[in-house]
């Protein structure tokens, strides 16, 4: 459904992304992983058309991505960026209703309210629907924003594109897994989901494909088993890792090698405490 053909983006001479090619099929969850500064967020911004690729192009539903109008795109694609702020005082459900803005002109109808209700239940944010957004905790705000993204798309004719930039920020373990399961279900309904995330194990457990980036380059792209190779990951993250099989699932489990992990006692601890006093 979504294809990226040789995408590159530069600022002056510095490459932020170079020669990225991948495709998202209907029903697939794709994770984008890589160290800080690898170009993950740049990719999201290119896909959400905040930036225009210097070379290469995207196609969506077999048409060039840039040929879609803003409003048309808003009905097919939702984006959740890392830091979403809200500059006015609103109730959580009013924030979620913003996801319906592309769908109604002046006043929301019953269907719009139903979508809001459904999206808030999906993200378990319905208990605080009436509370003021600014008074919610970081994780609760994140769930409200996710609900907004879910109610923007997925209620009419698909396929839809869902772009999430580190959606797991601030979420506890239970909600991380819950959210990823919701994303899986959403993809299974015939849509495309692209998630930027740092946790390789969650990526391996919940995605069909992983796109691994490092220093603006595409290092690997394929199924979790293909991408999660110990030597490859150790090289990319500059930390020794091992890949073992998951005790209960059929996906790889990535663990950091004990020899490279920070010792818990001895002189290392001292440096840590000194660091703390400096800060």
């Amino acid at each position, binding site marked *: 459904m979504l294809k990226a053909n040789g995408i590159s983006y530069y600022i002056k001479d510095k490459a932020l992304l170079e020669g990225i090619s991948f495709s998202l099929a209907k029903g697939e969850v794709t994770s984008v992983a890589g160290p800080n500064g690898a170009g993950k967020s740049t990719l999201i911004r290119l896909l959400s*058309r905040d930036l225009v690729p210097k070379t290469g192009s995207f196609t969506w539903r077999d048409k060039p991505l840039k040929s879609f109008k803003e*409003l048309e795109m*808003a009905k097919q694609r939702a984006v959740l960026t890392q830091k*979403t702020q809200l500059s*006015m*005082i*609103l109730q959580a459900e009013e924030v979620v209703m*913003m996801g319906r*803005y592309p769908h109604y002109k002046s006043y929301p109808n019953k269907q719009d309210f139903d979508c809001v209700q459904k999206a808030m239940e999906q993200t378990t944010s319905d208990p605080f629907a009436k509370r003021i957004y600014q008074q919610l905790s970081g994780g609760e705000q994140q769930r409200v924003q996710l609900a907004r993204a879910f109610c923007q798309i997925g209620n009419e004719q698909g396929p839809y594109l869902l772009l999430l930039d580190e959606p797991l920020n601030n979420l506890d373990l239970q909600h991380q897994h819950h959210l990823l399961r919701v994303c899986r279900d959403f993809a299974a309904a015939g849509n495309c989901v692209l998630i930027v995330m740092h946790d390789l194990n969650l990526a391996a457990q919940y995605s069909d494909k992983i796109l691994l980036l490092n220093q603006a380059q595409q290092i690997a792209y394929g199924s979790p088993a293909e991408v999660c190779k110990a030597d490859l990951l150790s090289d990319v993250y500059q930390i020794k890792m091992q890949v073992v099989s998951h005790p209960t699932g059929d996906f790889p489990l990535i663990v950091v090698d004990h020899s490279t992990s920070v010792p818990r006692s001895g002189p290392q601890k001292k440096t840590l405490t000194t660091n703390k006093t400096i800060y």
Partner: protein
Amino acid sequence: MLLAVVPISTIISSSIGAADIDSMEILSVMAKRILALDVEVKPQTEAIIWNIRLPRVLMSILVGASLALCGAAMQGLFRNPLADPSILGVSSSAALTTSITIVLLGPYMLSWQESLGLPILPLSSFIGATASIYLIFALARSHGKIQVATMLLGGIAINALAGAGIGLLTYMADDAQLRSLTFWTLGSLGGINWTQVGLMTVVLTLGLLIVLPLAKNLNALSLGESEARYLGSPIESLKLKIVLVTGLCTGVAVALCGVIGFVGLVVPHILRLVGGGQHQFLLPASALAGGILLCWADAFARVIVAPAELPIGVLTALAGSPVFLILLLQRQKTGYA
């Protein structure tokens, strides 16, 4: 409910002033003039009401509505409740360009006005207002975010520049020009005629027609520029519309009544506390409440030091500055704003 308060305020406020007139007489004059009914009214009373009081009261409502609407729209555009035509220097730049026109182009102005058929003063003040709001917005915006500090400092700079410019012009002006300059910097609703009321009505109607349908998009903008675009809001045209409407409404209001500050700050702030921040509510409610507020503020200004009157701009600044300070304090406490 606010809608019902407007005509009542008009009538009661018209009865307040140096000459004592009761509300029934006002209704009689209105019935006679508007409905062409045959009602007995003293000619003197009729003259005061029809030629002085009514235009003035209507103007106060129109200007109050315009300024409050501009304030609410600017706060949406800047994603910040501290934005206001007077704080960001939009009003004072309008006053500056108007003053320049009066002092430097004064001798030619009347002949131009006749030959071109254009209201020169409102036009020059519109140009000043639009230029300054565009400048502030361009200054304060970096990478799609509004820098609050830059916004407020930019407002200070523009206010200072306009103040200095008007000061310089005051030095150059002759006696008659001096009087009108003072009028522009202090703000006054005196000496309003029906033509001016007509002009302001057109401007406000235009402003309402353009701004009210933007409510949904202004809500979306509160998430950030990119996020609003993801929701399908036409952000660039929204910015342009708000810059132009604010320039037009503030500009014409300043040209006709001088600088009346803080209405655009105080009114949306109070309404947000009452009815929440959604622009579907905030924009129309601000226009109505702004009109009512200025109508009563002007009635107050007329009687408090009667038979003289207080410049309305002084009154609104006296009441508005504390609200601005409270907002600044809140911002420190909650991080919001």
